[in-house]
């Protein structure tokens, strides 16, 4: 079974702090990490590989330093890393990103399954997975929380819904996005770390994947940012004071008005 995992390098939110005085984001010393949901996607792929044999290729679109994330993926069980990187990709919205990834995946050849995290924690759009499935014209299921089995070219899984879950069967090749419930990602093994050190990522440029320049990056994006601004926080902050009884009294009075 040939599995492709889409991973993204994102700023680590754990290091991001709100500056109490200005209510702005302080990013001092923020490191780049693999998008946490993608870690679950990778783990799902590696588990499938262990069960059914095959290969796991991690692919990322990003600047040259996104190679670190591929190394991380190899350390956690991926066999190979593909870095899709070109200045021309900068400013891509999800439409241009899914186009670029689809062209790169077509270039890589046949596959059985693509697994993505449900969304990236920097953009939170959850659009690249479904967009990619559409561009590759393959069936797709979002929010997989469990893979039951994989036989005769079909995969069975459970999809998390707002009100429960659905049991799904899907023909492969196919794409799924996963939620964190699906597994507990492993930590890199020593062997994995050694392999990661030696890994030579395949690097693909816009020309390598035969992409149309007008469909890439900012130019290829259907959406445009008009402006970016800081959200305003609650203006009327009020600390309740006094004994427990007094605070509870005040709170109940406030609640009476709210509910």
């Amino acid at each position, binding site marked *: 079974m040939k599995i492709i995992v889409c991973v993204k390098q994102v700023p680590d939110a754990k290091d991001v702090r709100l500056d109490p005085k200005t209510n702005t984001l302080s990013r001092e010393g923020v490191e780049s990490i693999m998008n946490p949901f993608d870690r679950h996607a990778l783990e799902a792929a590696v588990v499938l590989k262990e069960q059914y044999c095959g290969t796991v290729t991690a692919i990322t679109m990003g600047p040259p330093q996104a190679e670190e994330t591929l190394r991380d993926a190899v350390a956690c069980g991926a066999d190979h890393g593909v870095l899709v990187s070109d200045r021309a990709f900068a400013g891509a919205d999800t439409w241009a990103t899914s186009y670029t990834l689809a062209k790169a995946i077509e270039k890589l050849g046949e596959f059985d399954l693509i697994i993505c995290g449900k969304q990236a924690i920097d953009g939170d*759009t959850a659009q690249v997975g479904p*967009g990619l499935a559409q561009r590759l014209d393959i*069936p797709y299921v979002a929010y997989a929380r469990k893979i039951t089995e994989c036989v005769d070219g079909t995969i069975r899984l459970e999809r998390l819904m707002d009100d429960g879950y659905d049991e799904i069967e899907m023909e492969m090749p196919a794409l799924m996005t996963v939620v964190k419930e699906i597994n507990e990602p492993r930590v890199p093994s020593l062997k994995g770390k050694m392999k990661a050190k030696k890994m030579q990522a395949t690097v693909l440029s816009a020309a390598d994947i035969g992409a149309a320049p007008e469909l890439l990056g900012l130019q290829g994006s*259907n959406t*445009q940012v008009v402006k970016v601004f*800081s*959200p305003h926080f609650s203006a009327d902050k009020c600390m309740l004071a006094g004994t427990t009884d007094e605070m509870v009294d005040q709170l109940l009075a406030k609640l009476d008005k709210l509910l």
Partner: protein
Amino acid sequence: MLKIDVEACIGCGLCEDTCTFGAIKVEDSVAVVGETCTLCGSCVDVCEVGALSIDTVEKNVPDELKDWAGVWIYAEYRDARIAPVAFELLGAGRKLADQLGVPLSAVLLGSALGESAEALIAHGADQVYRVDDPALANFTDDAYANVFEDLIREHQPEIVLAGATAIGRSFIPRLATMLATGLTADCTDLAIRAEDGALLQTRPAFGGNIMATIECPTTRPQMATVRPLVMKPNSHDGSRQGEIIDFTPDPARLQSRVRVLRSVREESDEVNINEADVLVAGGRGLESEKGFEMVRELAGLLGGATAASRAAVDSGWIPYPHQVGQTGKTVCPKVYFACGISGAVQHMVGMQSSDTIIAINRDENAPIFQVATYGMVGDLFEILPKLIERIRESRTGEAGNR
């Protein structure tokens, strides 16, 4: 790419502080842009001396855009029920349609739809496009997207809105890709630009730490998913008139390569924390499963649902569907109680847009107090039992008066 006018740049560092991606740095008193720049434009807006600019590619706006007219909303239907977000979309869509002077239409896909179309009209739709077919009984991305695509291509609406629910976030991106148009996820505000009628779509980015307003200048329809519980629904008016248009899709378009074998509802009434008006959330400060029981009790008393920080979920006190935050759900109830939650930024981005936030924590320096409307510093194990007791007393008092 991002252009820096080195003559104009004064090296003040505002851009560096603003950049969410760590892509711009001040070196030798001049801003320098790195590879991680995503051209989001936040630095351009913040620069006080106008030293930063982004080369925008001027795209021609095709003439045929003016042929697209009307505002559509997707009326999600599952389990013999219209999702509440559909009524909120009708509320938001009505305003947009009135401003543009165009009709508001709802798209209703499913099987055995009953009187749902009539309910959508009563809540503000001028037209309902209804596709009632057994093949749509279960949600599958390809069949839903195919049918929706056919309707859009035939009628050419300028705006299509859907709820940012599990279903909406699953198939609407596929639909937008089919239509080769832009889509903005998880919007919290929608407005029409008076000059040209463009839809301005505002959404939180980077987990809510910055807000971005997005437009879709050269393609139609302009598409957005909208967060549940943000927009105000119209009230029900049974006298409203509207038209129901039944659409029979090509059977080939209803075929899906995905089969739903079984659809299971998890009976817990509170799993869908996105829909609750009151959320009582607990975190590490509750110390144990037993401590967490107080949160459940308070939620029950207030007619709300129970939520949790990641720490509480990881401790096994409550299952993952209740988790609020970056790796859980984003919620915006009327009232959010944060009990024993210190307020890691990953949690705050999931709840900071709640109307009222009540925080109870032992540590007066806990970051949660920065976003709290009302804060209480003290011992949870004193405050919560007292609060629960007082609410109980007032309830029995009321019951006795009746």
